[in-house]
């Protein structure tokens, strides 16, 4: 039930009143951008939303992060790209995407017909210049609410080492991107590092408006029958429910290290997980691999949030961000 008060406040999608009269405010804010709720499908698991829009009205989501986009079109890695794990999966898609110009000319205009909110632009690159140029081109599009810059990619000029594994390289990308857009810039960190907090801090110091984490953990599987790796590229990114405690720990650590907002993700698959991530310090929460096995999961989490909040006596989600850090 939606109360008259919230309707008047134009919050009907976000303030929920239960039969018992409990008001649950699910709204959150990311660098000035107010979302109806913190539920955001993660990049690479939601495409441009079209497959999901065939199933349900995706406007119920906070927003979503679109498929990692690069300056040039990419086919990505050879197949098999997918391996199953206990409570998770490995992917080695290799950033297959049609390139920024086609995203601007085709995908984003199409998106307007089924998604009326602003979207998160997830951007990847293989050099600092490439990141900046991709963001610069996307910046002209009004559908974009903020940039999420994936620094897990290998730096072709840096011996193939991921930008996100060095505070200096991550800061360099941050600064370059920061210069070419007016929109908020969130840096998406790789968990494959020893000290995630120092990298987050370096990004903050270089002008990042927020931090997104975690990307996938490097993993692999070997087929007992063929005695060879399952994935053609041997290794790939591990994600899904199994990584939740690792992701939660990293969000918790980064919250202590920076003042800018955090989008937390990694293994989230229920309204309880969303709340737990927020308690650790996330201002909004992304859901990745779970979309692939249960395409309705984000809709269901959005629907379950008010009840779950009531169950734990939470009236406003924004008030619990980082609550686990309080003494």
């Amino acid at each position: 039930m939606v109360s008259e008060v919230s309707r008047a406040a134009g919050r009907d999608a976000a303030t929920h009143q239960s039969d018992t009269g409990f008001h649950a405010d699910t709204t959150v804010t990311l660098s000035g951008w107010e979302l109806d709720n913190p539920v955001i499908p993660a990049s690479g698991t939601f495409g441009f939303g079209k497959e999901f829009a065939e199933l349900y009205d995706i406007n119920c989501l906070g927003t979503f992060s679109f498929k990692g986009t690069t300056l040039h079109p990419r086919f990505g890695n050879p197949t098999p790209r997918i391996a199953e794990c206990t409570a998770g999966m490995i992917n080695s898609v290799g950033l297959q995407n049609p390139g920024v110009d086609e995203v601007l000319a085709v995908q984003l205009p199409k998106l307007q017909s089924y998604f009326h909110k602003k979207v998160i632009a997830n951007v990847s690159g293989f050099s600092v210049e490439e990141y900046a140029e991709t963001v610069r081109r996307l910046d002209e599009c009004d559908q974009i609410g903020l940039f999420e810059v994936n620094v897990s990619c290998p730096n072709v000029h840096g011996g193939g080492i991921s930008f996100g594994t060095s505070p200096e390289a991550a800061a360099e990308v941050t600064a370059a991107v920061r210069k070419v857009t007016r929109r908020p810039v969130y840096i998406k960190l790789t968990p494959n590092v020893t000290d995630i907090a120092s990298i987050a801090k370096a990004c903050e110091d270089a002008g990042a408006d927020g931090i997104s984490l975690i990307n996938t953990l490097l993993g692999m599987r070997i087929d007992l029958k063929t005695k060879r790796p399952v994935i053609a590229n041997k290794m790939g990114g591990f994600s899904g429910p199994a990584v939740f405690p690792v992701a939660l720990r990293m969000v918790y650590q980064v919250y202590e290290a920076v003042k800018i907002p955090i989008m937390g993700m990694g293994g989230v698959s229920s309204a309880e997980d969303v709340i737990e991530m927020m308690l650790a310090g996330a201002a909004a929460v992304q859901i990745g691999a779970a979309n692939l096995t249960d395409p309705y999961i984000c809709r269901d989490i959005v629907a379950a949030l008010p009840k779950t909040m009531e169950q734990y006596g939470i009236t406003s989600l924004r008030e619990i961000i980082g609550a686990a850090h309080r003494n």
Partner: protein
Amino acid sequence: MFAGRGRPLKIQKSMKQSIFTILENKRLAPSVFRMELVGDTSQITAPGQFVNIRLEGRFLRRPISVCDKAEDRLVLIYKVVGHGTQQLSEMAPGTQLDLLTGLGNGYDLSKCGEKPLLIGGGAGVPPMYWLCRELIALGKEVTVILGFNTAEEVFYEAEFAALGARTIVMTADGSYGRKGFVTDGMTALEKECGFAGKDAQQSDCAGSSADTFYSYIYTCGPMPMFRAINQVARTSGQFSFEERMGCGFGACMGCSCKTITGYKRICKDGPVLEREEILW
């Protein structure tokens, strides 16, 4: 088994998640099972489409081709190759399964001429069944070649024959039917029908079908079988591919392949590809 509809199927692409109940789950061959389910089949619109099955304790769903469907009934035939299919084989009637249906493009029935040839290899046999039933309902003269390794693996020969298809079974070791691969079956049938053509390699594939025993090829099976078929095929055709899948509905790019017409997702733009667009 189920009556054909007698008109071309419309390929519509829309999926549905719903709960099916197992009516029957029985062994057809030492490691092959046939499962009949009841549920909402409304989104299953063409032979060659598949369903993606959620299994307790397994993170990813398991893709299995639609073997047959009618109103609220669905038939799947699957080979036990790992944990998931083992789990399926142990399920009792009455068990409920969460399925995504209506996945994949399916075969296009409009292009096949009057004498389609259906070739199924091993676990690629099941989708040929509904296809065969629909083609026969359209009045086509259907030949089916089924390929297996050995006698004990053979299934569904009688079922295809009962539909009215000329049904040839090949076994690699010659322990049942004719000895050899499905392509040996193609060559033998050509000789028997008096076809006097040259090697397929030297002839113009698209134009030389008039005097052989088939007008078009539909196939599903392993890649080596596809390559062998491509070597001897005299007509165009449609091939149904397998790939490891993340989602099965087009969202993750886990199953992409390169084709002459660009990148395609096996799960959404396939699994059926036309012979002319495949990079052989």
